[in-house]
């Protein structure tokens, strides 16, 4: 590619800084609210707090319920547990399904792909009522397992689509070479396909994690025990019709965002290659 002249390099930097500023401004508002005193929204346009205070974080993290349980800790644990098992189960299901859809020839393969896309088309909120009865019948109401299953299946279509696209672009010869080298189908999958698909798996994993980590409507409906609540459900209490504690809400929002941001940062390298295949070739 043509190298940019110093002038255009400056220009590029300028544009990027400008876009970053726009990007950061609303996000900084969350930070501002979290570190301000009181629950009121500040009325000045500056994105920096007027009075600096950790009170919201202390309130939030120190919250203890009527039985003396450290509720924030339990909810954090609940969130982590739900999000990570969702990721694991979702990935396990998605990777194998995507591999089959990409590599095997079997009836109704195209129909399978279309079905996956179709499930994304029906508004999720309207499936809530039937889903509730279903989970109750399966004995999964008010359990993390039920929530995990719902999340895992909800994020499946995206994961399968992305992974299938990646597998499609992966040269088939590598698997054939492994077969020739004496690998069983399972060994081909474990030793060649999975390591090669690592970027895509990382990205789809991140996506499932985020879906489960951020979701609150289903969690608020399906869980009936405060200690099982995930953090977004807990946070949602701070903004309601009568009374909104925006400060505490923002502090919570910040805490909720941190793990996701950390994951994003850690997976940065994979993120770029993982959504589109191409890096595997050669």
């Amino acid at each position, binding site marked *: 590619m043509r190298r940019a002249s110093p002038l255009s390099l400056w220009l590029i930097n300028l544009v990027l800084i400008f876009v970053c500023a726009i990007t950061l401004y609303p996000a900084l508002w969350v930070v501002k609210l979290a570190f301000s005193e009181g629950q009121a929204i500040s009325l000045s346009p500056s994105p920096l707090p007027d009075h600096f205070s950790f009170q919201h974080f202390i309130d939030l993290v120190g919250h203890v319920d*009527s039985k003396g349980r450290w509720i924030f800790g339990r909810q954090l644990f609940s969130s982590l547990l739900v999000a990570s098992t969702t990721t694991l189960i979702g990935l396990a299901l998605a990777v194998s399904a995507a591999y089959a859809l990409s590599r095997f020839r079997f009836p109704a393969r195209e129909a399978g792909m279309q079905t996956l896309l179709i*499930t994304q088309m029906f508004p999720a909120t309207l499936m809530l009522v039937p889903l509730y009865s279903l989970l109750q019948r399966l004995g999964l109401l008010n359990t993390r397992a039920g929530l995990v299953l719902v999340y895992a299946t909800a994020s499946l279509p995206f994961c399968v689509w992305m992974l299938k696209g990646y597998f499609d672009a992966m040269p088939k010869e590598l698997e054939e070479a492994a077969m020739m080298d004496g690998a069983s189908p399972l060994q081909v999958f474990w030793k060649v396909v999975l390591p090669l698909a690592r970027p895509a798996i990382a990205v789809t994993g991140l996506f499932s994690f985020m879906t489960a980590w951020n979701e609150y409507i289903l969690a608020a409906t399906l869980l009936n025990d405060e200690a099982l609540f995930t953090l977004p459900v807990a946070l*949602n209490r701070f903004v309601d019709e*009568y*009374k909104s504690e925006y400060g505490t809400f923002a502090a919570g929002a910040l805490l909720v965002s941190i793990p996701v941001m950390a994951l994003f940062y850690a997976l940065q390298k994979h993120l770029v290659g993982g959504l589109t295949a191409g890096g595997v070739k050669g």
Partner: protein
Amino acid sequence: MNALLIALTFSAAQPLKVWHGYRGGEESALIEAAQRFTQETGTPVELLPVPYQTLASKLTSAIPHDAGPDVFIFAHERLRQFQRLGIVDRSTGRLEPRTYLPQSIDALTLDGETYGYPLAFKCVALYVNKKRVPKPPATTDELEALLPALSNPKERRFGLAYESGEPYYHAPILLGFGGALFDAQGRTTMNTPGMAKSLAWVLKLQERGFMPQEVSGALVLSLFNEGRAAMVVSGPWLAADIHKDIDYQVVPLPTVSETGLPLKPFLGVEAAFVSGRAEQPDIAHRFAKFLSLGAATQLRVEKGQQIPAELAAYETEAVKSNPLIAAFRAAAANAMPMPTTLEMARWWEPMKLTVRGVVQRTVTPEAAGAMGDRLYRALNRQSPPPTSPTPWLITLGVVLLGLFAYAFVDSRRGLPWRQRYPDTWRAVVYMAPAAIGIAVLVLIPFTVGISLSLFHYDAGTYTFVGWGNFIDILGSHDYSITEPLSFYFTLGVTILWTALNVALHVGIGLALAILLKEPLLKLRGVYRVLLIIPWAVPNYITALMWKGMFHRQFGAINGILELLGIEPVSWFTRFSTAFAANLATNTWLGFPFMMVVSLGALQSIPKDLYEAAEVDGASRWTQFRRITLPMLKPALLPSIILGTVWTFNMFNVIYLVSGGEPGGSTNILVTEAFRWAFERNEQYGFAAAYAVLIFVVLFIWSAFTKRLTTEKA
């Protein structure tokens, strides 16, 4: 003796489950009261705090499935609905009516039976900043005389602030100006002189700069705390958050000088209800009653600052010495207990659209009433005529048979099965877990959802109506095609919304990706992380932030416009600007995904192609058009297809930023479906029909893109 023992061990093993929406002081009071109850009776109490906005739907879904609590605390306004669904138990005979304020008992009485035990009541009153208003106004004339001196919109100071777009807050004014909610037959009526006068009065105060626009509860608090609003209308819940430096008093709402009637707020009674399916009804009633009386009341007053419903409480020192309670009791004297009729539930949504239409100046106060009546008829649909489901079932059977037959015949044609599909068994093994999961947890609810669209739902009963819902929607029955509430208008908005969003996401994402590819760029990693932030932060949080940024008086965007010398914009009063606000928010949320996809896709383009183009003397633009774009297409297309489906159903942004304003015109199909299901009296069948139509539109679109992609291959 034995029986007692069994009862004791039983009750010790079985805690009483209680759900509530309390926070802060009210919650601590409840916790302590519950502990006392356990000490007295030996029955443990398990409290579950639920976000208030989800509490009602949680109760209505959980209790009929036997997954709910024994006791729950809720306002009385939904009592009729609860009673119809059988989720509340009668308290007649167990509660002594004379112990409580008569208004609170009235509120809990339906058809001669009482339900639940009244705890406290809530209504609005006038909070007055004493420093700025030494003598609170007793009449609207006095109020109007005070306001000019207290207001200066340029400095963002206002004499009065309240949530002027909310029916709950407009109701006192409507009633004070002689208006009514219902006619003599108990039907909602909007087109009354009182309605026009009350709206004209509000508009006058707003136009003269005495009141801010687009007011939320949070803004009311901020304005009062910063001394920017001299008077605000709010309920007892505000008191806990008022800054300690603010010297204030609470007084009943003033009287309307023109009519001599007081501004009459709604009275909401909070009660402890016993579930209709409680596992231990006796102990549950005992607990609910315990909460409403004596020591528990004391706790609720002292710790929770509640305005108690128990009469005896007013004799105690704690209540007598509390000016807030006294003030609200006085305010409650003028209040009207919120009716529990089904008609009441139908009143809210059209009323809200009417009030907002006036304060956003899309309709005049005089014309508003007629519009309200029309909206009422449109939003509270009559059931389409019921039909027999038999022909439907027969058709369904025939179609299924036909499909099986086709599959059978198809499998006999062409190559033998094993050759055509050599991997069937392996595929079954690999696909089974995902397929079963999707089939059970997605396809079953999906099928149920689809079949719901053939029913009309009204307060607990489903009637089969066949195509009825679809005919209503597609026939655009109650409004012309160009009106915001018609399907076609919303569809148009949705398509515009999707197309613009996807174009912006891809355009901006791709542009940034190309900039970030610049090999000499040093801070690439930093930029990349910063630009991904909108994707990483939960969107329900950032959507709220954006809404704040678009506020008429206090939003950052108008602040910047003013700095640039541009007239500030009332973003949510016109379709174009409200739509632009939604678009800006969603663009901000969505471009990082496309940027990341583009970055990856750009990487997969071989460098030598560019080198070849360079040698051929192609300009950068030509390189972009002739190499980058065509090479990106296969990599970007799946993401674009998915992105389109997501944007089409992007609920959070529309719901949280513009909320459909003005007048529901910026709603997209999915928010409209949600409103029919959850905000317009649970018209599940109609909402499901909307959902099916959404599905059909997307399905046609995906069939189209499928052809697009296969043509490539």
